[in-house]
């Protein structure tokens, strides 16, 4: 391992850091407690609840994520995309490092569909209860991770071109919806109330696919090797886990 970035810190420097950090922690506690004792912030609970009927969903967190502060989410997806592009720019993916045993393969064959199903459920339920695109996307990505652990070096991801399209789909749809409302004269991402629920579901569906793709690709860690072209597209493809790497 040569991932050390700095020279070895001196013992005295380390001690200094510790003292300073203890002081910092003390300061933060003191400031926060003084403030919370005298004038605690009221939060935006009431406001968020009051506007909920205009948001198109009933889960307030989803309302914040995809309506009130939708721009944060759009940019956050872009951060995820940036990470994947950065990872791809750093070199090709390494092959899976482990061959799965039969037990694992059996387990995977059982777990993966379950993950996909629960992902779909979380996506759907996100409008009214805890859940949503991120959780769903993470579960799908987990399915991909298990595939890779099971010996599929590409974690069930399709070929590079399809991956690229999947990676931008969620962000693209998000931006397109925003542009559509803009063109309709309402302002960027200002959904008409009647459509809001459906538009949010549309965005979330594509965002789920994108999040799953991006997270899985980040786990695979590198640009897909161009030579290896598997034709079958799509995430939900089962693959024989007994392949020897």
């Amino acid at each position, binding site marked *: *391992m040569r991932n050390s970035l700095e020279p*070895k810190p001196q013992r005295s420097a*380390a001690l200094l850091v510790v003292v300073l950090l203890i002081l910092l922690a003390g300061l933060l506690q003191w400031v926060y407690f003084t403030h919370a004792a005298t004038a605690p912030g009221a939060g935006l609970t009431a406001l968020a609840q009051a506007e909920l009927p205009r948001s198109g969903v009933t889960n307030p*967190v989803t309302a914040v994520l995809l309506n009130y502060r939708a721009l944060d989410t759009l940019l956050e997806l872009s951060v995820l995309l940036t990470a994947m592009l950065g990872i791809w720019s750093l070199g090709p993916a390494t092959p899976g490092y482990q061959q799965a045993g039969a037990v694992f393969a059996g387990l995977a064959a059982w777990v993966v569909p379950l993950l996909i199903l629960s992902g779909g459920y979380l996506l759907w339920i996100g409008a009214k209860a805890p*859940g949503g695109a*991120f959780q769903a996307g993470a579960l799908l990505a*987990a399915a991909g991770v298990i595939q890779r652990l099971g010996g599929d070096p590409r974690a069930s991801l399709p070929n590079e071109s399809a991956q690229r399209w999947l990676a931008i789909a969620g962000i693209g749809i998000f931006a397109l919806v925003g542009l559509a409302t803009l063109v309709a004269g309402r302002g960027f991402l200002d959904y008409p109330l009647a459509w809001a629920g459906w538009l949010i579901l549309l965005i979330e569906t594509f965002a789920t696919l994108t999040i799953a793709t991006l997270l899985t690709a980040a*786990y695979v860690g590198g640009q897909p090797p161009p030579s290896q072209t598997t034709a079958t597209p799509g995430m939900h493809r089962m693959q024989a886990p007994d392949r020897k790497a």
Partner: protein
Amino acid sequence: MTATLALLIFDVLMLLTLLGLAVATLSSRDPRRAAILFIAFGLWLSLVWARLGAPDVALAEAAIGAGLGGALILSAARRARASSQAKARAPTPPERTPPV
């Protein structure tokens, strides 16, 4: 009164466990062990958050923070270990940090 007290004790225990896990994670020298402890920390954190009335975030932390983040770190740790075992003749990796 006792119920509030019991709840307070419960909260304190939860937090102490959380901090204990954090300290254990941060102070373990073996990356792989640290990664596993990090996953445990993340899962415990999601429990705490569920307790704080944030089920959405708890779910996300369990799936993304602890789950995928942990898996990323764990696989990197395993790879690092594999490569350092492969280079057994290489000098001791500069992992020693001064005890603080």
